[in-house]
């Protein structure tokens, strides 16, 4: 059976519907939501193609959805469907099992017609640094090239994207805005929607309800990009250095798979990895730096404060007095307070102890099923203090908040994490200043590097000022 591409005679009442559901995707039959009989004419005409979910690759296996190939992440079982031993991929299991007797469907027909109108409704003005980055972004979008935007926390990265998104949509290009963290997707979604009310913008993260169907812009966690294939002309990766993207090579492959060949790739970060910095310096990766926040004020420089053996104190149900005093000062002035800790256990203990003094204090961590709800409580000023693990170190903007790290010497607080935490403070124009406290039991080089990083950015920013 030979596929008849671009068959003009092929006319099916569900053509457009199936096209929008399937175009640019890699889906299981259950995910398409149509019985196989409906898909059959499309398959015969070559508008839909099937590929095996898994195939043999060398000594091991390759998952065609998430591109996993580590033999340790595949398992076999005696399958009641095919009566044989089936191998399946454990990496992307959460999205529905891919096994040797399963099939992935993708679209091979006409490209979906854009439905929205790209007209930017944002009225604000870009800072000189933002303007420069925005211009570079538009060029990268037009030329289909790579670009690293290295912008300090609070540089106003979202606004930098607006013009490039508008240009891309006007030339009917599909856009993927992806970030490793669901929290960041949820922050971006309303802002992009508000800027482009005429476009269809969908948010994809574990548990979101808008999983399928057409969108002009997809905002997705990097995990969710696994369901796409050759879908996007413009791929913007926000917080490219963030865990788990930098630790999980299969996620990078998934983003590559979701992009069309020749797609523009934009990387955004405040804290690029060594590799990215090196590529930029060696001229292998075009980059632009924004050392100044959009409001023109410098980044708050962290204060280091020795607090002795805080772990022992926590064990005895005590919060170190210096931290208590700082919380007292801040909460009595009505300042929302972030307290960053290095483990779930510490988050729970510290939240419980602080709640004794400040009613409504909450603790949150990555595995907390109520974490989105809790962050919302803090945002709405229903909680005076939010004790959190590093999941909230980036992307989350709480107006007027100030931040403390309890145990800044812990290894989880590397330079990048500490810079990101400092970046939570002083983000609004009305309150551009605020405390960043690293409470520690011994200075680490990460703490000193973080301070140096911020000071360097501030220096560069003041040199660039008025440009």
């Amino acid at each position: 059976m030979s596929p008849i591409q671009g068959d003009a005679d092929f006319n099916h009442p569900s053509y457009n519907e199936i096209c929008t559901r399937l175009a640019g995707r890699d889906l299981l039959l259950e995910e398409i939501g149509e019985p196989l009989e409906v898909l059959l004419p499309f398959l015969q005409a070559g508008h839909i193609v099937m590929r095996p979910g898994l195939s043999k690759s060398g000594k091991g296996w390759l998952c065609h959805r998430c591109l996993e190939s580590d033999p340790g992440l595949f398992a076999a079982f005696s399958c009641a469907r095919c009566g044989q031993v089936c191998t399946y991929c454990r990496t992307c299991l959460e999205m529905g099992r891919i096994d040797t007797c399963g099939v992935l469907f993708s679209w091979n027909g006409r490209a979906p017609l854009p439905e929205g109108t790209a007209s930017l409704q944002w009225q604000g003005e870009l800072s000189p640094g933002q303007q420069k980055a925005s211009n570079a972004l538009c060029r990268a979008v037009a030329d289909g090239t790579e670009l690293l935007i290295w912008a300090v926390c609070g540089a106003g990265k979202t606004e930098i994207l607006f013009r490039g998104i508008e240009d891309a949509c006007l030339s009917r290009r599909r856009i993927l805005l992806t970030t490793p963290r669901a929290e960041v997707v949820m922050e971006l979604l309303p802002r992009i929607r508000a800027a482009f009310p005429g476009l269809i913008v969908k948010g994809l993260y574990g548990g979101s309800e808008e999983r399928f169907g057409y969108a002009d812009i997809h905002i997705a966690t990097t995990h969710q990009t696994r369901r796409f294939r050759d879908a996007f002309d413009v791929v913007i990766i926000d917080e490219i250095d963030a865990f788990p993207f930098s630790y999980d090579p299969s996620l990078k492959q998934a983003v590559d798979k979701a992009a069309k060949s020749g797609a523009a790739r934009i990387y955004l970060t405040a804290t690029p990895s060594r590799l990215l910095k090196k590529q930029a310096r060696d001229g292998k990766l075009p980059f632009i730096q924004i050392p100044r926040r959009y409001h023109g004020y410098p980044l708050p420089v962290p204060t280091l404060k020795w607090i002795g053996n805080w772990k022992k104190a926590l064990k005895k149900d005590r919060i170190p007095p210096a931290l208590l005093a700082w919380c007292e000062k801040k909460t009595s002035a009505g300042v929302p307070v972030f307290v960053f800790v290095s483990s779930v256990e510490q988050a729970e203990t510290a939240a419980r102890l602080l709640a004794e003094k400040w009613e409504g204090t909450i603790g949150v961590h990555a595995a907390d099923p109520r974490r989105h709800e809790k962050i919302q409580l803090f945002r709405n000023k229903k909680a005076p203090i939010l004790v959190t693990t590093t999941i909230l170190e980036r992307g989350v903007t709480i107006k007027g908040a100030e931040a403390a790290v309890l145990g800044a010497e812990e290894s989880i607080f590397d330079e990048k994490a500490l810079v990101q935490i400092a970046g939570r403070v002083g983000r609004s124009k009305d309150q551009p200043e605020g405390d960043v406290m690293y409470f520690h039991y011994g200075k680490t080089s990460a703490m000193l590097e973080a301070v140096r990083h911020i000071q360097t950015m501030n220096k560069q920013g003041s040199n660039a000022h008025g440009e």
Partner: protein
Amino acid sequence: MGSKRRCLYCMEPRQEQLSWHGLISRADDPVCPDCRALFTMLMSRDCRICGREKDEQSAPFFQDTRCGDCVAWGEKDIGRALDHNISLYRYDKAMQQWMARWKYRGDPALTAVFQKEWVQIWRRSYASWKVMALPAGPGRTQERGFNQAVLLADMLPGDRLNGLEKKDEPKKQSKSTKNQRESLFYQPFYMNNQEKIRFNGEKILLVDDIYTTGTTVRKAASVLRSAGAERVASFTLARSTGTLSRKEEKAQ
């Protein structure tokens, strides 16, 4: 790239090094110590029949060594079809999450998380019993690609006993309420009679994943007893503790 040794559950690469801690923990454990610590083994058999724990909720209904549910079962023929139940773990949050991935997401490799404990109990107390996996309806098995009771039974050495079948139920058990589920008039199990199988004098160990009210295993046990089995016990991975018997429900 060589494959790293990973925890079977969280799939993180294993980092445990040889240390004093390593000597007291299990070197051959397929899961990391953090994941192992998530699960709670049931140590005391408070209810002699079903293994239910005596807690705030169930204690008032205990009569000697039997929980309220099992006292009530003792008054019914079908209730007496089951000799007893033994469960390995408490069906708490951690166990629920594990089951969700194992059974509903469909990660059969996770069965091995509990292999050691599972085989140990069988060896200690049930090595002379004939093992039978609680059958699932054909539709359900097709849908999942496996029957979870078979996965559990297959960890035990020796032959399986066959002959019992189950009809597909109209509703998913875990979604229906206890009353519907407990309707004793609905019998989904039957003997595959073409083979004229009899279990005369056999002791049968019926394997399933969760014991909640014990209705399902008792329905199966009653068919097995009619086919001649002398005793039927159930061997389950988890004992659900949150369920109330009707009497307890009324008391609330």
